[in-house]
């Protein structure tokens, strides 16, 4: 019997033992896998899993030809760990295997020499808090400098990437491109197109071996980085540079406070040039005043003066009220309907003269325009100016853009309702004026101004900003008539010698507007401008040059040389062919 019982007992003992052991393991397993799992995983990860930030690069801003106006560049912050700094210096292992002892002060001197940093400041930073593990030594150095610092093999020197913004063309279109400050984009296209440009940083993790080598196949992208898109402007950067150079020279020669120059492609409203003087270099914003950081052509409305006259006349021709050859009797002074004591005069005194409507434009007669306003109701005149875009922002919607001011017929006084038809008592931006000339050049069809051509996302998808509707402001006949009138300015106007370009038919209009001195009266300062279309018979480009408060010449003759120079460059840049027909010989008097 016992012999039988023994194995059975042994068996049950074994089973119990095995079970007990297994239980112990199970308990431990549960403990490790479930109870402590999170903590253990964390501990393990902290030892072997590295998390890295992958940078989504901010997109470029390029001109219409692809020239880079703004891009992101690699810069490096040189950092250090003061607690690893030994006052005795360190031993450097040279390439040939020899060792050199480098004193702390020598190491600092080497860094200072490469980076241009101040030795004393570096020393202070390193020794101020010897327990600290992190301190910035030099910020945002270029790769060439960074490589040299790395080659010093100083054991306590570290680095971190510091993506930075770079504007290789400097002030070329700096007014439009804007800039990025430490807190992100602050002006211009950088700000308005930030949703397109902005990259999104991502993270990825990988595991490392004991010696820090990345384990193959262990990289996990926890959040993919998305690069920013590329914004393409309509600007031609070479022509923009030329216009800025010309504008600045002309502004300085005439002692002007500021100036703008715009070139707009008539067919599609693309802004090829929008130059400002003074203009900001986004790489160094301290070179100009705060008011020059943006684009004045959008943000600074002014009383445009006589360059408004074509808009008024175009409205009249459109309604069939006049043509280029309609006779106008222009008296020496205009007082009809004005309050007592108020007189509208021309720039130069004259007696009663007989002008055609073209003559009114050519002579830039305020009285002539005032006479013509009698033909049209206040409401229609107002509607005409608004249809040309005055009193509302352009579709560019530039940062800080002004909508200008057009007096409403409901509230307008008896003087302004007349004067705003020749550009006084009304305010407009250079962009609005350029838009008006675009419409006249494009047979009355006003195409919304465009500055941002497209946004190309990192994955290649291209989106175009919503430009807004194209409107027929005046009839093609009216636009053509006005251009014929404007041609007489180029051929016979008082600045025709300055703006004639042999071989080309050009429609121009001058403006010399008095600037209100802030007390409700006009002072001795003027804003002068010349606007025009080339070629006059089939316009391709509208050009407008404006100078504010010139000292030496207080008429549009101040802006004329710049206008002609930019016009010539437009001809060269876009290879505009010479006109094959002579200028329209529109009579200006009768």
């Amino acid at each position, binding site marked *: 019997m016992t012999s039988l019982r023994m194995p059975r007992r042994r068996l049950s003992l074994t089973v119990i033992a095995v079970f007990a052991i297994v239980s112990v393991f199970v308990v431990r397993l549960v403990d490790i896998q479930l109870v402590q799992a999170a903590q253990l995983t964390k501990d393990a990860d902290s030892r072997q899993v590295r998390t890295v930030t992958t940078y989504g690069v901010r997109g470029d801003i390029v001109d219409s030809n692809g*020239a*880079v106006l703004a*891009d992101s*560049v*690699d810069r490096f912050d040189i950092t250090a760990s003061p607690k690893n700094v030994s006052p005795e210096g360190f031993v450097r292992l040279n390439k040939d295997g020899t060792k050199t002892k480098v004193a702390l002060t020598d190491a600092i001197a080497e860094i200072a020499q490469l980076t241009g940093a101040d030795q004393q400041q570096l020393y202070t930073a390193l020794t101020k808090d010897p327990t600290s593990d992190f301190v910035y030594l030099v910020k945002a150095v*270029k*790769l*060439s400098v960074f490589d040299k610092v790395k080659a010093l093999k100083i054991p306590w020197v570290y680095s971190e990437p510091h993506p930075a913004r*770079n*504007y*290789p*063309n*400097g*002030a*070329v279109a700096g007014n439009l491109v804007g800039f990025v400050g430490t807190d992100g984009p602050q002006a211009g296209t950088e700000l308005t197109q930030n949703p397109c440009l902005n990259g999104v940083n991502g993270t990825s993790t990988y595991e490392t*071996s004991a010696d820090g*080598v*990345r*384990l*193959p196949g262990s990289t996990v992208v926890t959040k993919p980085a998305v690069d920013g898109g590329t914004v393409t402007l309509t600007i031609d*950067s*070479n022509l923009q*540079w*030329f216009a*800025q*150079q010309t504008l*600045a*020279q002309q502004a*300085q*020669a005439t002692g002007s406070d500021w100036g703008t120059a715009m070139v707009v492609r008539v067919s599609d409203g693309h802004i090829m040039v929008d130059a400002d*003087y003074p*203009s900001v*270099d986004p*790489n*160094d914003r301290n*070179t100009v005043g705060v008011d020059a950081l943006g684009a004045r052509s959008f943000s600074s409305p002014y009383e445009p003066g006589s360059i408004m006259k074509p808009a008024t006349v175009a409205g009249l021709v459109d309604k069939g009220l006049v043509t280029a050859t309609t006779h106008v009797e222009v008296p020496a002074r205009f007082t009809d309907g004005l309050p007592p004591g108020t007189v509208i005069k021309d720039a130069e005194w004259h007696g009663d003269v007989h002008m055609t409507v073209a003559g009114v434009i050519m002579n830039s007669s305020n009285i002539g325009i005032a006479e013509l306003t009698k033909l049209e109701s206040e409401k229609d005149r107002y509607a005409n100016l608004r249809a040309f875009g005055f009193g509302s922002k352009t579709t560019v919607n530039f940062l800080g853009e002004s909508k200008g001011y057009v007096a409403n017929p409901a509230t307008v006084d008896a003087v302004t309702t007349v004067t705003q038809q020749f550009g006084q008592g009304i305010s407009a931006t250079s962009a609005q004026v350029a838009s008006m000339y675009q419409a006249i050049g494009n047979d009355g069809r006003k195409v919304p101004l465009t500055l941002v051509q497209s946004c190309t996302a990192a994955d290649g998808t291209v989106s175009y900003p919503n430009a807004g509707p194209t409107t027929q402001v005046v009839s093609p006949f009216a636009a053509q008539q006005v251009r014929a009138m404007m041609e007489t300015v180029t051929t016979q106007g008082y600045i025709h010698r300055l703006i004639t*370009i*042999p*071989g*080309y038919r050009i429609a121009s209009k001058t403006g010399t507007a008095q600037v209100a001195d802030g007390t409700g009266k006009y002072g001795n300062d003027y804003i002068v401008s010349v606007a025009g279309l080339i070629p006059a018979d089939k316009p391709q480009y509208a050009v407008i040059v404006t100078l504010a408060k010139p000292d030496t010449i207080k008429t549009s003759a101040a802006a004329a040389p710049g206008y002609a120079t930019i016009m*010539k460059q437009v*001809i*060269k840049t876009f*290879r505009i*062919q*010479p006109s*094959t027909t002579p200028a329209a010989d529109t009579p200006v008097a009768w």
Partner: protein
Amino acid sequence: MSAVAVARPLRQPTTHTQPRRHLEVVPTRAQRRARPRMLPALVTIGGIGVILLAQLLLSIVIADGAYQVSSLQSAKHDAQLQQHALSEQLDLLASPQHLAANAEALGMVASGSGLYLDAKSGAVTGSGGAAGGSILGAGDQVSNVLLDGTPLVTPAATGSGTTGTTGTATTTDAREGSQTSTDAGAGGAGQDPQTPGLLPSPNTH
């Protein structure tokens, strides 16, 4: 009853001398087939050994490759940084300010208006006119602080390889200068035709 001792015959001693015959259960064929065999066992164990060895070698190779991948990735990263730095430099050198300053430093002037030749009629249209002269005459008005310290490509710097042609270029310049006074006047850059190191210019009519 009778107590007669009867001698019992001795028992025949068991035949111990004879070796016991070896008996064995002969396995059936099925049993024989089921018996573990040596060769497959060896092959299996050997196979496992080979597999383990192969795995070991493979992991060594992979680990080694990881170092290589790691170093190549860092080399790629360095190369990318290098490329970025160079294209940044290129963009800067391609800026209009730099190009214009260099062109004028080399004695170039802006061209005049273009002329157009109608291939059908042979007629020439356009104003033409003299060269436009110096654009930067009144100084570079469009600032670019990034260009500070960037040297201009001066004729002296590039002229070393073209000393042979410099002489002819100078005479050509002088001849053109005497032919058309407008050219020299419009040049405006203050270039002395006799300045050595001027770039050669084609003699066009």
